């Protein structure tokens, strides 16, 4: 299989704080990779480095067979990105924002307009196409972000909690979109804290813990290596977390007026 992304011994520090402590990662065409880990494990840092939002890293990142370095921008044309906390120019309308983004990716205005209109309609938010984004609901906003990340037909997608705020029907549509994209040879990095979803859609799961990769393999492989049954439990086990019951009990006792 064609390798889309190769990361070799990636390190990154902020000041004295080491965030990534040597990551090796390979992603091939058509893979949906569940990219999980506790808060602060370095997930979004990795994505930011790949996208060139941050620099000064150690090791190597290879995208589409080429190493990324300073002043390389063309590879970004083949990447789509839905950030977790997304900034949007929300005083623009959906049409204005999407065509703007499309044009930045090199699409013609008409092409971007047609595409974004159809995609908005398919996603059930066609009527909001010409309204200001500031008036959108959380789910509509999320759909807009998803469309903005796909409008230029990228080969590699980074999705960070992409179904945040979507209703159950939209989630089903979105999962189907992911499956279809993967079948069309797109590579998808899916980052989420909702383990059930990750477990179901991912063809491979990578667990990041404390700046290192703690597990890498299909869900079946992970299950074979660990005694626990669900991805949630495997996650707990790999990150060495067992106190949930104890903490939960204490929490409720404080809620009821008890002492710590």
């Amino acid at each position, binding site marked *: 299989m064609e390798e889309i992304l190769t990361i070799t011994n990636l390190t990154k520090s902020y000041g004295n704080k080491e965030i990534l402590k040597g990551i090796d990662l390979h992603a091939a065409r058509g893979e949906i990779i569940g990219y999980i880990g506790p808060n602060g494990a370095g997930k979004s840092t990795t994505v930011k480095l790949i*996208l060139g*939002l941050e620099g000064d890293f150690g090791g190597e990142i290879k995208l589409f067979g080429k190493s990324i370095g300073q002043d390389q921008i063309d*590879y970004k044309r083949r990447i789509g990105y839905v950030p977790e906390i997304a900034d*949007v120019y929300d*005083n623009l309308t959906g049409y204005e924002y999407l065509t*703007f983004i499309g044009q930045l990716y090199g699409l013609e205005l008409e092409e971007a307009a047609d595409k974004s209109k159809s995609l908005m309609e398919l996603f059930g938010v066609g009527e909001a196409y010409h309204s200001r984004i500031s008036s959108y609901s959380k789910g509509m906003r999320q759909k807009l972000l998803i469309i903005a990340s796909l409008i230029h037909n990228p080969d590699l997608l980074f999705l960070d909690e992409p179904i945040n705020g979507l209703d159950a029907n939209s989630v089903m549509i979105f999962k189907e979109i992911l499956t279809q994209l993967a079948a069309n040879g797109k590579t998808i990095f899916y980052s989420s804290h909702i383990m059930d979803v990750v477990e179901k859609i991912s063809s491979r799961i990578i667990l990041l813990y404390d700046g290192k990769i703690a597990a890498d393999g299909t869900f079946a492989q992970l299950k074979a290596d660990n005694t626990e049954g669900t991805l949630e439990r495997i996650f707990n086990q790999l990150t060495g977390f067992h106190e949930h019951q104890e903490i939960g009990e204490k929490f409720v006792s404080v809620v009821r007026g008890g002492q710590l």
Partner: protein
Amino acid sequence: MTDFKTLRLLDKFRWLFIKMGIDYDMMRKILHIKLTMDERKVPTLFNQNKKKDNQKYGYIKSLWIYMLFGLILIPLMGFGQNFLFQMSIAFAMIIFLIMTSLISDFSSVLLDVRDKSILSTKPISAKTINAAKFMHIFIYLSYLTLALTAIPLIVSLFTQGIVFFILTGLEILLMNLFIVAITAILYIAILRFFDGEKLKDMINYVQIALSLMLMIGYQVLIRSFEFVNLDMVVSFHWWNLFLIPMWFAAPYELILHGDTSLLTVIYTILAVIVPIISIWIYIKLIPTFERNLQKLLSTSKSKKEKNNRLKSFLLTIVCRTHEERAFYRFAALMMKQEREFKLKVYPSLGFSFIIPFIFMFTFSRGEEVDYASSMSYLNIYFSMMIIPSAVLMLGHSAKYKAAWIYKTLPLKDYTDLQKGSLKAFLIKLYTPLFLVLSIVFSYIYGIRIIPDLLAVLVTSWLYTIFCFVMMTNKLPFTKPYDEVNDAQGWKILLLLLPLGLLVGLHYIIASQITYGSTIYFIVLFFINILIWKLVFKSKK
């Protein structure tokens, strides 16, 4: 989306940008979007009844105030040959106005963190993004500078000649570069050492100071034309080296007067070299800047809440119920921490402090005042001018949507919320101001006026509740600021009228009745308690 004339003008310089290695078409698209968004700075959601072009050229329309300020420059730039003095003053004014407006209006452009995640993930070079950012500021700065200097420049073309005109034009360009670079470098320095919240606070304070200065400046200007004396002779001293406006004034002496003394030459060189160096430093620092900009997103360090026993005790006296105290604390925090509220109210707070003095000196001009017997201390009443607008603003908040919590709380009615926030305003904002004023006035007029001051203080409480009753929106922090409209502006003006009556009443009582002020104070005090009780009669 319509095309912009400004951008069409910019198209003529396309070759220049391309030569610098900038993707012009991409930059134009970004600028187009940015300008479109600027037009919409007022969210139309709440302004739909307004006429469309009202908002469209909002910024351009706000420029007339700068044109007005520009008129002051006419005597300085248009007449006289004492260039070093005149032009130093003129440039000092221009630098001050442009820099403060840059900080208050364009900080959002310089510090827009959305750019990073939206634009940097797209295939656009950093150079192009930065060029777009720079041109965005440059376009607005050009509007501003033109508004400020166009009229004086044209006058000077006729009175001082073409050389002066060209020289001034060039210098203003250099100065603008200097201002942008210096402001950005200032931000870089602040971001390097402090976190983003601190920077936002600092910008907020600059904005407050600017509005206050414009308010006072206007008052002082109409009264100060006699001060202008163009015959001042200024000579160079070595310490003038730090007076930046003087650098820009020196070239006039050099070129128009042929003064080739060492300092003139040094200043002229500085005026040319320093802006260029500063812009070069800025360009070098852009990557650092971009990195530190991320700090704006990060959470700031948390402060530990101090618990003062005396304060909590006093608060139990002021606010009787538990809920009222909670709302008092909440309102006090909102007034202290919401930047938009501060921007709207604090300048008038400062103005309220100044206005009694302005009235005092205006009315007593040319006469000897016997401070031991004069009753002009009643001007202190005009410090209450802040009360109507503050009470109005109290109903508004940038985070007005968060008011949903009021509805989910198990409250019988909102009287505690209203009482608590009004008291918070009186105690946290108005009373400190009044106390300082009182101390100054007692110093000027003697302690004999203390009963009067007490009467004024209780009047202010009464006046506050009166203003509150007149407001249509009575729930604190529940409306967006955009909803403050002209009708409410008129209402505030109307609410100011009773102030004159109150002064008259106080004057009559204090001058006609022995111990009038003391009696007045005691009567008012009890009326106060009664009225507050009546207004906030709990609907049980």
